[in-house]
């Protein structure tokens, strides 16, 4: 096991966000963390990353390089900044060679001439790809992606996920993916961890876990009907 979580409890501001959660992740797996807004998905990821105090057990196997794409790291914040794509890559703590950056930009399907463009002027889809390259360029063993397609249109959406899957096939990285989008769950995840606002949780392979009844329990009244892909 790469990660073992047992009886995890996390409270924020007096509210218990995560209650008695247990699950495990093996090396090279894709775990999708699924649930509606406010169910504590981001909180869980931040807890696993050691950014939030917790009770219970979180055990990582050995020391690993981690890449993280936080939710809401969107263009709005950078829209007014003169930071170019190349300068954004130069902010990384480990200095990365320009040739390496170019390799990863091409890997995520971007032209290398975006390097001199301002990061804030890229299209939504380009920006997300650029972020993915930014995370991958340090060659992490594990990546955490918190809603990586926020603000990207559906066409852009699908390609980012298939891209992620391709990259995973090539380099044996473990991926933690947060989403509320069910379509991608069935396609690529090894396991799904679902969280709901009422504290209901489930964990297991997507096809076994997610029947209509389970989905209703997770999402409540928000989603009435789902078509399995």
């Amino acid at each position: 096991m790469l990660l073992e979580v047992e009886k995890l409890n996390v409270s924020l501001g007096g509210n218990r966000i995560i209650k008695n959660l247990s699950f495990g992740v093996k090396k090279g797996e894709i775990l999708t963390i699924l649930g509606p807004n406010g169910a504590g998905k981001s909180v869980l990821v931040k807890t696993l990353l050691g950014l939030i105090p917790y009770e219970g057990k979180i055990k990582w196997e050995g020391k690993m390089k981690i890449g993280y794409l936080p939710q809401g790291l969107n263009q709005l914040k950078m829209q007014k900044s003169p930071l170019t794509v190349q300068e954004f890559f130069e902010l990384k703590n480990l200095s990365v060679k320009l040739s390496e950056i170019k390799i990863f930009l091409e890997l995520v399907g971007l032209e290398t001439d975006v390097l001199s463009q301002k990061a804030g002027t890229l299209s939504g889809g380009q920006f997300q790809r650029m972020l993915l390259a930014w995370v991958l360029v340090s060659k992490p063993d594990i990546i955490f992606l918190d809603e990586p397609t926020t603000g990207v249109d559906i066409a852009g959406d699908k390609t980012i996920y298939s891209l992620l899957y391709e990259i995973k096939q090539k380099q044996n990285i473990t991926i933690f993916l947060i989403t509320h989008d069910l379509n991608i769950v069935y396609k690529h995840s090894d396991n799904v961890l679902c969280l709901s606002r009422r504290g209901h949780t489930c964990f297991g392979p997507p096809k076994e876990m997610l029947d209509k009844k389970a989905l209703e329990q997770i999402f409540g009244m928000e989603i009435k009907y789902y078509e399995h892909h």
Partner: protein
Amino acid sequence: MNIINTTTMQIILSLISGIFIGGISAYLGTLMLSKKMTVVAGPLAHLAFPGVAIALVFGLSISTGVFPFVVLGTILIWYLEKKTKLPLENLSAIIFALGVGIGLLFLPIDKAEEALVGSIISITPGETFFVIILSIIIFLVTRYIYKKVILINIDEDLAKIEGVKVSKYNLIYLLSVAAVVSLGVYLVGALITVALIALPPASAKNISSSFRSYKMWAIIFGMISAMGGILIARWLEAPIGPVVVLTGVAIFLLTMIFKSRA
């Protein structure tokens, strides 16, 4: 003859320190603008009030009074942010009220002008030397923390995962701000220091195509504002502080025209 020489000497000294203060304020200002922190400079500058008051009452040089107060205020803001998680702007507003309150309580009104509009024209050679050394130190420190602070500004959690010690860099950053604010109080006075930090980066942003050019233009505009302001103020026989700021505003308007044409 002697009087003319002294005056010329004073102008040269104030120009030298002005260029250094203008440049370093603008450089740090580029970092602050990206953190939406230029608003914090104002309150910090007003923290100088009690310091100026004490310096004037005890007949000390203004910097002796200002620096400890601004640094103490800065550490207080840093500590409160860590403990309360309130936005820096809110905390600064509290510190602002504290500074002005205490300042007005003790600052003799007839001597308030020096604190408000600065006293660079009466700067001594020793003080000029101090300004140069402090500017160079702040420049080196700021350059060291620059990229890390930008990453913290973009996303604090992301910076942490990248291995940046957020709390440490925030403290170094705020101390640099405190040092620059103290210098700014020298040149343009507490009231207008914020303009020295905010105007050149804002002007530079209008015309730059990358962060590198943004930093460079900000420093150039900061230096021109200080230099031009001092010379124009001498020529018009006007107080230096306001003229330096108005020069900065003029540059900003010019870059706006450039931006709208580009």
